């Protein structure tokens, strides 16, 4: 039986380090609150489900700066939304590739939203909240 918790942590570390020049410092307890930028993707094929990410706008701006090689105060709302959507997309692809490397999957375009609390992640089977240098990132995963 695959350890989904461990897989999610491993994938988050890998993606954040290699594409966002960031890193996971540890895990945080408790539900994330406050204003957050979120992205959710669904997947279908060999398995079906969804993956969501959520972070404070300031964290997304810093992650986007790392991703784009820009100054964080130069990151626009459009860029921040694109980056949080891409983060969800890449995390989902990486999780599915490790869960079932020989499977077939289709991942939906990300739905990006600005809301109170980690709405994109709430209700998902597996939820993790990672402490980053830039703030916190909540990740949720449901595999049906």
């Amino acid at each position, binding site marked *: 039986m695959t350890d989904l918790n461990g897989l999610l942590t491993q994938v988050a570390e*890998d*993606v954040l*380090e*290699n*594409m966002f020049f960031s890193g996971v410092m540890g895990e945080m307890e408790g539900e994330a609150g406050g204003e957050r930028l979120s992205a959710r993707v669904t997947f279908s094929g060999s398995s079906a489900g969804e993956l969501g990410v959520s972070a404070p706008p300031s964290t997304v701006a810093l992650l*986007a700066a790392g*991703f*784009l*090689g820009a100054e964080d105060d130069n990151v626009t709302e459009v*860029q921040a939304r*694109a*980056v949080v*959507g*891409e983060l969800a*997309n*890449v995390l*989902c*692809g*990486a999780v*599915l*590739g*490790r869960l*079932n*490397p*020989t*499977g*077939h*999957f289709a*991942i939906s*375009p990300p739905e990006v939203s600005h809301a109170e609390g980690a709405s994109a992640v709430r209700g998902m089977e597996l939820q993790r909240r990672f402490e980053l240098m830039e703030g916190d990132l909540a990740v949720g995963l449901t595999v049906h």
Partner: protein
Amino acid sequence: MASILIVDDCSAMRSVIKRIIGISGFEMENCFFASDGEEALSLLRNHRVDLVISDINMPRLDGEAMLRKMSSDPALCGVPVVMVSSDATQSRANRLLELGAKAYVVKPFQPQPFREQLEKVLGGVHD
């Protein structure tokens, strides 16, 4: 030096790919951008491009359809295409390689290995 066309509907991703290529030290003579397969084909018909780096899921004409059109066009079939995707499954990679992609790179990727892939596809060192 090579002229590169980066095809992705996400502008942030186009910038990041260009940035990663730059970090790797790979020298580009020109770097063109297209937001989907249709735009890419139009650019290819009007500019000399040595290598295409393309996403798969895009509106209007996706990466797979663009690859099919390039393969069947005598003017474009010789331009190598490297597909870049978040889809880490072997089945997707195999399908695109069978359609004519010269390499399939899964995100996230690091500058040096990416550069090595590009040089392997182009058949030489570019720095």
